[in-house]
C-alpha cells in the first residue's frame, strides 16, 4: 500500500510537472538566436571591395599614423567596432577628451583659467561633427568633469 501510495504521489507529480513543461514549451524563437542572413553563394567581389575591415586596422600603432580627421571619421562612422575603440584611444593620446553630454571631443586650446574639483573653465577646441564637420574654438567654456568620458 505504501508503495502504491508513493507511486500515485509520483504520478501526480509527473502529471503536474508535465503540464508545466507543456505551458512553457519552447518555440522557434527560443531555440536559436535571430538568424542573420548568411549568403549561401556570395557574389565574388574584387579584393579591392573588402567585405570586412582589413587586418591592418587591428593594429593600434596604425592609428598613430592616421590624421585627426580620419580618427574622427572612424569614431563616428564605425560605431561599436574595435576600430572605434582604437580611434578613441588614439584621440585620448593626442589630448582630446570626450564630452558625454555633447557627445563630441574637446581639446584645451590653452591652459584653463580655472580648475576646481568639479570643472575647468577656459578656451577649447571642439569637433563639430553634426554641423560643418570641422573644428571650432569656444572661449569661456566650462567643462564639467562629470561629463568626462
Amino acid at each position: 500500500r505504501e508503495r502504491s501510495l508513493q507511486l500515485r504521489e509520483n504520478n501526480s507529480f509527473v502529471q503536474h510537472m508535465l503540464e508545466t513543461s507543456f505551458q512553457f514549451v519552447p518555440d522557434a524563437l527560443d531555440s536559436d538566436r535571430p538568424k542573420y542572413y548568411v549568403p549561401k553563394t556570395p557574389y565574388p567581389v574584387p579584393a579591392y571591395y573588402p567585405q570586412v575591415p582589413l587586418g591592418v586596422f587591428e593594429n593600434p600603432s596604425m592609428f598613430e599614423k592616421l590624421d585627426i580627421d580620419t580618427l574622427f571619421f572612424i569614431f563616428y562612422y564605425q560605431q561599436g567596432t574595435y576600430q572605434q575603440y582604437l580611434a578613441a584611444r588614439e584621440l585620448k593620446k593626442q589630448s582630446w577628451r570626450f564630452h558625454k553630454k555633447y557627445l563630441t571631443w574637446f581639446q584645451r586650446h590653452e591652459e584653463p583659467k580655472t580648475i576646481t574639483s568639479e570643472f575647468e573653465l577656459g578656451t577649447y577646441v571642439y569637433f563639430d561633427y553634426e554641423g560643418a564637420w570641422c573644428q571650432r574654438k569656444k572661449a569661456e567654456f566650462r567643462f564639467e568633469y562629470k561629463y568626462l568620458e
Partner: protein
Amino acid sequence: LGSDLTGLGLNLNATENLYSTFMSPFAENPSLGAEPQFQTPPCYT
C-alpha cells in the same frame, strides 16, 4: 487507428534529408526558422 502522418508537416517524399531543417518536433511546420524569414517590401513587387 493512428493518424495520417503525412499531415504532420514533414515532406516525407523529400529527396534531401529532413534532419538539417528540423527545428522543432512541436511546430506544425517543423522546419520553421531553419531559414531566415524574409519579407520583401511591397514596393519591390
